């Protein structure tokens, strides 16, 4: 019984409308039928050759390693591994899934894909990896990451970490990966924010990674943020719980030196940051604020995708100063004659105080916003 023959007519109609059907091939004469037979034989041989090539291609596809069954992995916990421990250069992609990609230095082909956490393991089971080309592998991974909503317009961050190797090797591998990601993103009309770093000695982040069950790449990023904040009692656990999107925002707010290509989604502008005074807050408050902004931004765009347009964003959310030099967060819908909603707070840069006020401001914004929603 062929159930697909009973699919809803609208899906068939859609298929019909989006396709241009070419004229059927003309009937051939008897003479050409004889010729066609020979051509068919030739085509059969060609098919055998092509099939062999395809089979070889499949055969040479990168190995997807299951950590539990691997002997040579630096398996340090039940649920995840921090990186493979053979000392050769490799690339780690962190989004939330963390995947290690081994690249053969001689031909720049992907030789292994190693899931470093459960999310990555699940992701890789859904990818039919049939190629060893870096760009194609990255394209397949990005498609899957996007399909599983790990990469979205409001969460566009990827951390690329090269472990081991010298500076030259690291730059080469990093460029390969970034170029692959950017090309794939262009094809998929995505806008990525890619963080890159090189860890010539990843072992130094091993303890932090093991302790928090994260990759060494993410551990190094966390260290980079925390060190930059010059914090003495920062909460590694809290940073480790954040995904790369939130960490990318935090890294931007606190001006880390980490290399970034492309703007991180949901980033509030520098002027607003300076007025809020995030740099002078204690770490707990700064992290809380950064996380709130990240989550609130995602909610905002989910409620109205056009808010993701930078032009709208800057028109709707502004910081304004009154005659007494007090700063306010002003929210207005430029398409409405309704008066703007003003959330005033003074001394916005004072440590520990601004986040609470800011939190109220966001809540007020959503109350305001909800009034415009038709549901």
């Amino acid at each position, binding site marked *: 019984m062929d*159930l*697909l023959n009973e*699919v*809803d007519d609208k899906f*068939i109609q859609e298929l019909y409308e*989006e396709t241009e059907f070419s004229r059927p091939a003309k009937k051939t004469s008897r003479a050409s039928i004889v010729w066609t037979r020979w051509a068919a034989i030739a085509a059969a041989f060609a098919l055998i050759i092509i099939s062999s090539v395809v089979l070889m291609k499949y055969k040479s596809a990168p190995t997807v390693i299951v950590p539990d069954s691997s002997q040579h992995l630096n398996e340090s916990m039940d649920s995840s591994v921090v990186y493979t421990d053979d000392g050769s250069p490799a690339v780690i992609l962190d989004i939330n899934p963390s995947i290690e990609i081994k690249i053969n230095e001689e031909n720049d082909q992907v030789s292994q894909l190693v899931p470093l956490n459960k999310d990555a393991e699940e992701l890789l089971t859904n990818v039919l990896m049939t190629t060893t080309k870096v760009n194609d592998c990255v394209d397949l991974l990005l498609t899957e990451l996007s399909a599983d909503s790990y990469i979205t317009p409001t969460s566009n961050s990827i951390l690329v970490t090269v472990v081991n190797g010298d500076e030259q090797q690291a730059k080469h591998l990093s460029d390969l990966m970034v170029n692959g990601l950017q090309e794939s993103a262009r094809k998929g009309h995505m806008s990525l924010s890619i963080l890159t770093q090189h860890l010539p000695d990843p072992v130094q982040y091993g303890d932090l990674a093991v302790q928090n069950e994260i990759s060494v790449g993410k551990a190094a990023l966390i260290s980079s943020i925390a060190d930059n904040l010059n914090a003495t009692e920062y909460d590694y656990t809290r940073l480790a719980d954040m995904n790369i999107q939130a960490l990318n925002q935090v890294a931007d707010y606190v001006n880390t030196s980490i290399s970034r290509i492309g703007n991180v989604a949901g980033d509030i502008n520098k002027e607003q940051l300076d007025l809020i005074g995030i740099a002078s807050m204690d770490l707990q408050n700064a992290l809380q604020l950064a996380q709130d902004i990240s989550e609130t931004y995602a909610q905002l765009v989910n409620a109205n995708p056009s808010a993701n347009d930078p032009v709208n964003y800057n028109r709707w959310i502004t910081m304004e100063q009154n005659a007494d030099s007090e700063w306010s967060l002003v929210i207005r819908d430029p398409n409405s004659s309704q008066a703007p909603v003003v959330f005033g707070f003074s001394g916005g840069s004072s440590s520990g105080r601004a986040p609470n006020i800011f939190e109220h401001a966001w809540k007020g914004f959503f109350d305001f916003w909800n009034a415009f929603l038709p549901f």
Partner: protein
Amino acid sequence: MEDQFIVELFFSEPDSALEELRSKYENYCHTIAFNILGNNEDCDECVNDMLLRVWNSIPPNRPENLAAYVGKITRNLALDMLRKTNAERRGGGESQIAFEELGDILHGKNELAQMEDSKEIQEALNRFLGALSKTERGVFMRRYWMMEPVAVIASTYGMSLSKASSMLHRLRQRLKKQLEKDGINL
């Protein structure tokens, strides 16, 4: 000519209606038949049979969606023809491969169980298709309804062969999960 006029024409001037139908849908039906049967002679026969069947069925039928109506008839005729051919010799274009790909999900059940669940599975399948993006749905329908080769699908959507294969693989997994979630035992 608009579909509804062609259908109405069958009620007043069936000869003209048949010509209009052939003119509009011959290439479409030929493509469906060719993907299944793999040769032009059988396809021509299949398209002629489709026209005859439409001639005999309108009136009394008055299909609301003519593209789906003739497409389904052509697909059924081509599959019937393929079964007859396969009874004599092994083979059969893309459909054999496409059916095998979906085998574990929709065609792996025994016939009695299929009959009991078929309506439920059809509804789940339509829900699944409705929830896909337009590209995903196009890729899935082209492969499993229209039986197009993966290479042709990849070319249509400007993607690599491996990406199209991977997308189909993922869609089959998602369909399987959806059916399991809907309590349909496979």
